[in-house]
Every structure is written in C-alpha cells, then in structure tokens.
C-alpha cells in the first residue's frame, strides 16, 4: 500500500477511535446540545423583549440563531481541546508517536471526529430552535452555503483546539482557550447589532472573526444574500485553520516533555 493510502487508513482509524468516545459517553453530545439551547432560551427570554435596533417585525430568535450556531461550534471546540489534552497527559499520544503512523493521521482523527460531533449537535440545536419558533427563509442552496460556512468555522476552531490541547500541560491550562472561544462571540453582532455599541467595542466587534461568520449565516438563513462579509468570513476561517494546523504539526514533531 502507498504511503498515501496508509495515511488515509490511519486517519480513519483515529477518527473511529474518537467517535467511539462520543458514542460511549453520549452525555457529551447531550451537553453540547443543551448548552446552546439554554443560551438560546436565555437570550430570547431576556433580550427578546427589547427588539432595539432590529428591523421592524423581525423576531429576535431569527436574529440570534446564527450566533447560537457559532456558540455550538465554540463549545464543540472546547470539548475537542479537553479530549486532546487528556490524551496528551495520559500518555497515549506518546504511544502513537512511537508507532509507524504519520503524526498528521493522528491530528486528522481529532479534527474529523470533532467535525462530525459538532455538526450533529448543531443540527440538533437548529431542530430544537425551529420547534421554539425559529423561521429560516433559506432555500436549499442557501442552506447548503450555510452548512459550508459552519463546516469552515468548525474546522478553524478545531484546528486551533488541537494545538491548544497538545500544548497545555494540564486541563486547567485550557481555561484561556475555552474563554476565548466561548466569550468572543458575545463581543460581536451576535446578540445586539454593533451599531448600538460604544466606539471601541464597535471597532473590536467589526474586526473580530466571529462577526463576519455570524453576519454571513444570518444573511443566508433569514436575510438577504450577504456580499463582502462572506469572503471575509471564509478568509478568517481558512487563515485560522491553516495557522492551527501548522502549529499542531510543530507540536507533534517536537520533543516530548518540553
């Protein structure tokens, strides 16, 4: 078998391993759906009454839902970082590294299983949201585009989660990463239009990566076709994914115990 065939086979083996973890402990998936749904209920219940700055007749659940999808991806990536960190501190990554498998196959396993897990939880969150009154106007093509953007976002966040998980010597060391992926969406167009924010916060919200992703999803699911924001979102996601991938590659090749 060629090196390429073996790498694909090893990636599949590693993906199966991580997916088996999810199936063995389905509570992981339940929490990954429950947390965004609770946030959705919270925001619709608390801020839904305000409707400040929203277009007339727009429902708040339609406005906030893209952000909930992004937060589902953020939560998924923190689960990934914790899983990678557990493997790293428990020594099984050292075992894999003494075996004749390419380090990239190991990384692919984490990323592909995280992608599957997060997309399933996002689909479940959307289903619950529709039950709660979310009314997307997208046709099949736009749904496909929205799914594509979500896949890109999950890839970006997961490729960042893997090296953070590898680099941290303890589970506590991941707090920073988890805070960033879970709090950064708040300082964006997620829950309130940026126009109502103070100048400094507005500047930050306009330039952070979650804003173009949320705006693109919102445009695709409930609004008009987004223009330039889609390109910005794609560039952000691709850039973060490549940066995370390169960092992870360095980490799995460097000496153990450093």
């Amino acid at each position, binding site marked *: 078998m060629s090196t390429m065939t073996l790498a694909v086979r090893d990636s599949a083996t590693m993906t199966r391993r991580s997916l088996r973890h999810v199936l063995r402990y389905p509570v992981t998936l339940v929490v990954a759906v429950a947390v965004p749904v609770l946030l959705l209920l919270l925001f619709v219940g608390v801020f839904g009454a305000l409707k400040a700055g929203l277009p007339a007749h727009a429902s708040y659940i339609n406005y906030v839902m893209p952000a909930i999808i992004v937060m589902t991806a953020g939560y998924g990536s923190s689960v990934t970082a914790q899983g990678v960190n557990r493997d790293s501190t428990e020594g099984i990554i050292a075992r894999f590294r*003494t075996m004749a498998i390419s380090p990239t196959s190991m990384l692919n396993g984490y990323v592909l299983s995280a992608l599957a897990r997060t997309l399933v939880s996002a689909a479940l969150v959307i289903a619950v949201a529709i039950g709660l009154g979310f009314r997307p106007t997208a046709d099949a093509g736009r749904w496909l585009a929205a799914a594509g953007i979500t896949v890109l976002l999950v890839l970006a966040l997961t490729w960042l989660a893997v090296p953070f998980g590898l680099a941290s010597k303890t589970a506590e060391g991941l707090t920073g990463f988890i805070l960033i992926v879970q709090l950064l969406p708040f300082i964006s167009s997620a829950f309130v239009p940026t126009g109502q924010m103070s100048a400094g916060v507005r500047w930050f919200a306009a330039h952070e990566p979650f804003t173009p992703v949320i705006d693109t999803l919102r445009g695709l699911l409930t609004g008009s076709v987004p223009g330039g924001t889609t390109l910005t979102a794609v560039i952000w996601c691709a850039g973060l994914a490549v940066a995370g991938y390169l960092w992870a590659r360095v980490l799995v090749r460097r*000496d153990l115990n450093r």
Partner: protein
Amino acid sequence: MTSVPSPAAIVATGLRKSFGDKVVLDGIDLEVGAGTTFSLLGPNGAGKTTTVQIMSTLVHADGGDVRVAGHDVARDPAAVRAAIGVTGQFSAVDNLLTGEENLLLMADLHHLGRVEGRRRAAALLDQFDLADAASKTALTYSGGMKRRLDLAMTLIGDPRIIFLDEPTTGLDPRSRRMMWQTIRELVAGGVTIFLTTQQLDEADELADRIAVLDHGRVVAEGSPEELKRSIPGSHVRLHFADATGLDAGARALGGAFRHDDALTLEVPSDGGAVAVRELLNRLGDTAAAVDEVSVHTPDLDDVFFALTGRPAAEPTPEMENAR
C-alpha cells in the same frame, strides 16, 4: 553465500542530552545484541527514561549516534518506529475504550486486517488474564491490569525490539512474576528487550547484560555475575539491645563489621539456616543480648555504594549546583 554476523539491535555512541543546563545524559555508549535482554539499572533521575525516549524517537539527543534495528533514530525515525514497541512507566492506554477495543485499535494501526487483528487481540487477552475484563472500559481496570493491557498493546504489532521502562514498578508480586515470565518468553522467541529498572534482583533475574547508570554516566557494565562480583555479598545483621551486648558480640565474632551508632554487627554469610545456626553457636551466651537477626541480600544501594562510594538516592554536589 557468506554468513554475516547478526548486527546489534541497538547501538548508542557518545549519547548526550541536557534539559536547560541540567545534564541528563553525559556521553553514554551502549550495545545490545539482537535477541538478548539488556538492563539499564539506576535510581530515579539517573537518565533511564530519557535514554528510552531517545531510542524510541520521542526525544532528540543533543549529541551522539543511536542506531536501533540498523536505523539512525534521528535520520530515519519512521523505520525505527516500525521495528520497536514501547511500554513506558505509566500505562498509556485509552481509558475510555474497553480492553478489547484498545487492542483492536493497535491492530488497526499496525494494518493487521480485521480477522488477524481479532485473532491476536483474543490471544493476548487470554495470555494476559484479561479475557473476563475484555469488554470493560480500561478506566475500571486496576493498576496491574492496565499495565498488562499496555504490554499486550505493545505486543500486538509483533515488534522485534521492545523497550520496557520500569515495567514492574508499583506492581504486586504476582503481576511482577507474570511480567518476568512474559519477558522470558519474548526473548525465547528472538525478541530483543531493553529494560530499565531500579531493582537489582529484576536485572539479575532477566538480563544478559546490565549497565549501571548514575547521573547520566554508565559507571559499570557487564553480565550479572561480573557485576555482583564487584559488590559485597549477602550478610547477617545482628542488632543488640545495648552497647555492652555489642561489645560482647564483637569479641565473640572476630572480624564482624561493627556499627556502634546502630548497635549492629554485620557478618558476611550466605544467610542459609545452617550458616545462621553456626553463627549463633559462635555467639554462645551472648546470643541473649541480640534482639533482632536479619539476613541482608545486596540491592541497588549496595551496587551504588560499591561503584560510586555513596548511596543511590543522594544527589551529587554538581547535580545540586546544576539546578
């Protein structure tokens, strides 16, 4: 057809490694013959784990050459990985998978194929007394069971060279004997074993050759017999109730090593029942002043004391300064 002598399984020359300004390996030369058991003996912090990590491609050396199965670990790590199996000091199993799933994962990563993988996994579960726990997650395993699963995972790929880093540390006596038996069977099948240990009796029991590692240097190397010749033999230790008894005992047994502070006499002896009876007969009435008799066989401390003039646990002044 010319017959070529089988090459050494592992050759290390001038191996050096430092972490920061702490020298861990200070120029090590080792040669391990194919199909033999080699033991690296030393206390905590001697550099045993670092040596194994360099030889198993996990850590880069600062200097020197290491060839494992004929391949340079720095230039061709993939070829080295294909020939070796490693079981470290701490069990590296997937705690969320069952014992059987752990073995099948390893089988898949060795590209064994479904049928062959299942066959070998079942055989190893039997061999390591894990068949009853095969469908339980490794999280529920005891320390000894995890260690056995870890070794079974190493063996499923049929490696020709196996590194065992303190494989019996923390194991109960039964698991320890089981580990020893497994190692003997592997060597009988032509496998090369590189074993690190803190226990002289373990190295003595298993190894064809022993190297004693102390603060990153090999201070002695040879067969177990050669090594034991360089250290004091076993002795009987007599503890006295008071100094008067010690004086009387020392007079009765000329030539015994006397420790006034500890109120003990040490008499070289094989520790057998006949020798002990003969010793007590020589003491005569003085035997009443002895409140404890113990037989002492040489251990790592004796080896270190004989080779370096200080106990194994005590750091050297240079090491203190290096920190």
